[in-house]
């Protein structure tokens, strides 16, 4: 493949434009390293008690995904951690959630999530979640219904849509 002198000049100009734009973009938008994690624990049941008003905007999503008649917020946790550092949440029903952000790639947050039932690991997953996105883990039995855990992650700024409740403590390790 050969390049004509005219094309080569044009290519050099374009590369310069790219470089300058890239440098200015990099300077103005530093890569975030901290990840904010938000966990809402919801009890879902068929007891016709409606939706807990503290669930706020989560109501629509839960009703769209599942067919339960009762959704009650039983816990809300949030915390922030650095990439590579695990954060642990103690959830209702003896569940423990470990979240370890691994990397931030453009608009995606790579992370490992481990859900323990007491001391028994129930589920381990590696995934990439969109910034400000939410993953829902559900199914374990809880009181008269089932537990639905909504896990959201954000690289900063306002929290993704979450329940309106006082956050519980989280520990980072």
């Amino acid at each position: 493949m050969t390049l004509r002198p005219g094309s080569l000049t044009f290519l050099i100009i374009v590369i310069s434009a790219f470089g300058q734009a890239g440098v200015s973009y990099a300077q103005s938008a530093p890569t975030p390293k901290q990840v904010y994690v938000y966990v809402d624990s919801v009890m879902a049941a068929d007891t016709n008690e409606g939706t807990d008003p503290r669930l706020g905007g989560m109501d629509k999503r839960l009703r769209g995904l599942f067919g339960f008649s009762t959704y009650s917020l039983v816990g809300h946790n949030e915390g922030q951690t650095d990439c590579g550092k695990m954060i642990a949440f103690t959830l209702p029903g003896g569940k423990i959630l470990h979240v370890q952000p691994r990397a931030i790639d453009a608009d995606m947050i790579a992370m490992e999530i481990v859900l323990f039932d007491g001391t028994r690991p129930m589920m381990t997953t590696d995934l990439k979640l969109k910034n400000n996105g939410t993953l829902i883990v559900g199914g374990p039995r809880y009181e008269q219904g089932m537990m639905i855990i909504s896990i959201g992650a954000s690289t900063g700024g306002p929290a993704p849509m979450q329940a309106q409740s006082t956050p519980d403590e989280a520990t980072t390790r």
Partner: protein
Amino acid sequence: MAECSEISMMLGAFEDSELEPNEMQEVAFHLARCESCTGILADYSTLGRNLRSFAPEPSLAGFSSAVVARVDRLPQPVLTRIERFLRRQLDSVGSGIAWGGAAAVAAIVTIILMTPLARQFATRGTQPAAIASSVSNAAVAPAQVASATAGEPTMADNDSHADISRLESENHSVAVWSEPRRDTTVIWLPDQP
């Protein structure tokens, strides 16, 4: 509760899931409460990832060009050689035009999307809208708050699609599904009977 000295001996095997179920439980239980051991486990995890990343991959650099060169050295009929010569000439002219076109498109996209000037324009365009919406919210009468809340962005408005690369569970009935309309991924782990 087991001592850190006992647990630390099992952390490597725990990371590789090589412990007996009762030992896994014991370590997990300890980790949920011990920062120091969790830190050590994180180090094992990082070390393991780094070691895996060093695994050599055979290089295929130059393989295709070597094959093409070998094929080129095979004896060809005169007509084929003439045809190849003409095609190469045409390719060189065409590639110049293609490079120029691609570079122009790239430059335009760069200017539109990445320059600070363009982003200033984008921000300038959105700010008035944000102010306008907050003003209109403030003007909502208390009696209308409930209906205004229903119009707020919900979780369904967020793009929360997840890309799952690994999922392990003792539960054999794990279900994973996505709800494209709501950009939601759900992992369902029903309790075993």
